[in-house]
């Protein structure tokens, strides 16, 4: 990023050094026009991510004003799923190129991973009213030129850079995407056609460029078209949460191959094979079974090449509404069986899991979410909390506790969930015992339980004082 910035500066200096007689072609004129149009709506979203060990890292991304009252949209790729939203701090918005370099406080509204957008709203009353960009849905063709944006860093007042590239290929299934043959700028920034239409966002997409048997992932910059996020832009989330998309609770999906379709005499029909049903999920309640072939959803057949079927199906679910009841046709024992599934919101994610951290012990735990139990092949309602952070200088680390351990008991007291853990742990710590013994479950497949003994050094902790775990000096570990 920085290197790019320097290169760009050099390029600008070089350009400025040319005599004014240099030929300005039509493209140059277009780029300037487009930049003039878009620039007033471009802003920098700045925030800090506080890691589990308390260290803060700054992040700054170019985004754009997309609604009244300074609603700002940027890419959701930078709001990670394994970090609690409470660890994202101090959201601010900076106007690039402003001479005063002032930043304005903002509130994080939330994100939608499917639409790939996240939102903040400027809350600072002294902030100027910025003009929102008008996005529109438009179909691009191969070869169409498009304009993207980047920005310089703080020393250069975040000045906006402009660049153009062309649509390389048009992807149409399960939805339209436009890979480009060059640099499109910072993910989450607007993409504008030469006639000034704001048609999407720049983003990075991973395509399978190999065969099904030997996938080869390739990262490409693409135009993420307006229709992917327009609805969300009009109805931005609130309260800093991930937007819940509809969920059916089927997993281990595989495409119905040509051979499988032929074997079952399905003719031209295709679909997906259900590999696993999450207990208690909508599909479980609807009576979908493992090994069922899902052929249609909402009266629409699932179509596409073998490599497209699973995403086509998933997309059909995501694009619906939570609470909607959809018709599903499954093929089972030689017959087509019609079923109705009522879609529920996605279960809690790791980022949403409630956390508890004890600095003295150098220990961070969080509640178990569905993904944890799926990965470990445990029952959905497994009791306990999961360790997600161990400070290498803390008492928990010395006891041999590690990331991913599930704590089942503290001092022989059963732990049902995170509230339980916090209460019991605090009660036990209050007693200042010479040891706190945990009963933990470890391992993904071959799981084993064991006792781990944490030995607090209360005297050292008190004299050492402060936040440094274990009373140890807070020097970097070798």
């Amino acid at each position: 990023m920085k290197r790019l910035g320097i290169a760009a500066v050099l390029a600008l200096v070089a350009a400025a050094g040319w005599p004014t007689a240099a030929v300005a072609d039509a493209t140059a004129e277009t780029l300037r026009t487009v930049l003039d149009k878009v620039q007033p709506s471009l802003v920098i979203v700045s925030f800090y991510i506080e890691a589990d060990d308390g260290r803060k890292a700054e992040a700054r991304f170019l985004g754009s004003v997309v609604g009244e009252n300074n609603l700002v949209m940027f890419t959701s790729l930078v709001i990670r799923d394994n970090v609690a939203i409470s660890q994202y701090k101090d959201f601010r918005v900076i106007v690039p190129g402003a001479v005063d370099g002032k930043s304005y406080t903002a509130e994080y509204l939330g994100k939608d991973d499917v639409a790939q957008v996240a939102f903040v709203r400027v809350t600072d009353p002294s902030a100027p009213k910025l003009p929102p960009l008008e996005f529109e849905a438009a179909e691009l063709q191969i070869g169409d030129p498009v304009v993207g944006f980047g920005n310089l860093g703080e020393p250069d007042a975040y000045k906006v850079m402009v660049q153009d590239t062309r649509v390389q290929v048009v992807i149409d299934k399960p939805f339209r995407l436009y890979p480009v043959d060059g640099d499109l700028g910072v993910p989450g920034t607007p993409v504008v056609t030469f006639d000034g239409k704001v048609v999407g966002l720049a983003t990075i997409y991973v395509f399978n460029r190999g065969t099904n048997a030997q996938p080869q992932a390739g990262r490409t910059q693409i135009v993420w078209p307006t229709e992917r996020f327009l609805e969300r832009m009009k109805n931005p989330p609130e309260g800093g949460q991930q937007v819940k998309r509809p969920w059916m609770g089927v997993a281990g999906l595989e495409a119905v191959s040509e051979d499988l379709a032929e074997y079952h005499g399905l003719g031209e029909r295709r679909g997906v094979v259900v590999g696993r049903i999450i207990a208690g999920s909508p599909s479980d309640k609807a009576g979908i079974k493992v090994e069922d072939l899902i052929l249609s959803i909402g009266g629409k057949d699932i179509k596409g090449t073998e490599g497209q079927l699973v995403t086509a199906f998933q997309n059909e679910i995501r694009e619906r509404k939570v609470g909607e009841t959809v018709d599903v046709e499954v093929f089972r024992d030689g017959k087509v069986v019609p079923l109705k599934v009522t879609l529920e919101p996605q279960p809690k994610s790791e980022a949403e899991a409630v956390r508890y951290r004890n600095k003295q012990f150098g220990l961070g735990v969080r509640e178990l979410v569905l993904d944890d139990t799926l990965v470990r092949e445990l029952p959905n309602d497994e009791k306990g909390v999961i360790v997600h952070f161990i400070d290498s200088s803390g008492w928990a680390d010395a006891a041999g506790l590690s990331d991913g351990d599930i704590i089942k008991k503290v001092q022989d007291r059963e732990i049902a969930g995170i509230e339980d853990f916090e209460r019991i742990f605090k009660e036990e710590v209050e007693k200042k015992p010479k040891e706190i013994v945990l009963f933990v479950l470890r391992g993904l497949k071959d799981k084993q339980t064991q006792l781990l003994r944490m030995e607090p050094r209360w005297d050292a902790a008190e004299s050492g004082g402060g936040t440094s775990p274990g009373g140890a000096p807070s020097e970097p570990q070798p």
Partner: protein
Amino acid sequence: MRTSHVWAVACAALAAWSAGCRPASQGDERLAYVEVENVIKRARDMVYPAVVRVEARKTEYFRGQKERVGGFGSGVLFDSQGHVLTNYHVAGRAEELSCTLFNKERVKATLVGADPWTDLAVIKLNMDEVREKGFQITWAPFGDSDTVVEGDTVVAIGSPFGLSRSISFGIISCHDRILSEAMDLGGGLETGLFSTWLQTDAAINPGNSGGPLVNLRGEVIGINTRGGGNDLGFAVPINVAKNVVAQILDTGKVLRSTIGVQFQALQDLESFLDVSKTEGAIIASIEPDSPAENVLQPQDILLEYDGHRVAGRYPEELFELRRHIAGTPVGREVTLKIRRGGEPMDIRLTTAELTTVRSDEVNFEKWGFVGQNITKRLATRENLKNTRGVYVTGVRPGEPAHKVRLSQGDVVFQCEQAEIDSVEQLQKVYDEAVKEKKPRILIKVWRGPTIKVEVLRIEYDAEPEAAKEPAGAESPKDDKDGDTKQESQRQ
């Protein structure tokens, strides 16, 4: 290239050693040194003629592809019938074996039995061949590894990097070393759970494996098994080997019992568990579907096993405890005295046979994968529902199974509407399908908790019997030898 390098280093070291040890001053020091040298040479004379270089060839599957793998190691003759003790990782699963003796004669040998848990194997020289060639064999006596202490002088004899008849010299660095990291003999085969190691600084390099560690009385006290570089070598204590050898000579295999628990050392947990005296061992974990399931609980303290008091204060003692339990006859009802929540209790359970994760692989050639039966141990390690089905150990690229993305670790449980419990059953379905030239095969597998349903598309050659596999497949195998070795090193 590599060997010559090792040679150069070895020669330089030897020169330095002899130069450094040439007595420069007092005569009594010289005398003492000569004395030490004589003792070492006496020990050498007792064992050196009994040490052999073992050459082994075996069939392995790499990604479903049959390969012949060659390797070598060391071994030691221990009786007049020509039995040789070596490592499992040298001779286990070998189909062709030969030994080069100290007199440079090469003699064919056969595998008598092998035990991956202790990484030991017994092979037998072809004694007819020995007689035909007209020489006598010499064998080495076993010592008592329980009396070995740190500082004992030892020599290691074997074929480091294939350099047969090499001797190295050092002391016992630790008599009961535990190596905590998981030991894998390839294919997930576990080892090292039932014994601690004799650690020595006598040089042990690849190729020393299976050779003897010898005390100055000329007795074998260990089988050199692992070299860590940096003067860290590890030998299986001979007392552990004695029991293994006896069972192999008796029945050709080693039977062990399990009760399905993992132990934890008591140390530092006495007050939490309210154990006044430090006796017993903590039962930390219970394996699913094992004799201990629903009978024992985590945090129970095992005080007595089948009439024997249990010591488990230190991790080192858990090896002895595990070995003791493993030594119980399979299927025997045993009484365990335990303490649970402060209360003493008697528990009765019946021991089960301890299996390894591996069993014979079967090649489903036309379908493009290799599979094996599921042992109890494999089911535990891989969290499989039960021991039913065929565990896929390898999928050959480009073949039907690969095209539908079957992968290592999948469990075939249904094929062509037939429930599959074992490789024998799948073999039957396979043979029938091949005979009838079925073009499409419906196959269902478990992948962890997920079911995968696929149809294999099978092509049959125009001329059915003409293209018999072995003849065509044999010749390229030798060409691939170099690759195979590389592959096995990566494992």
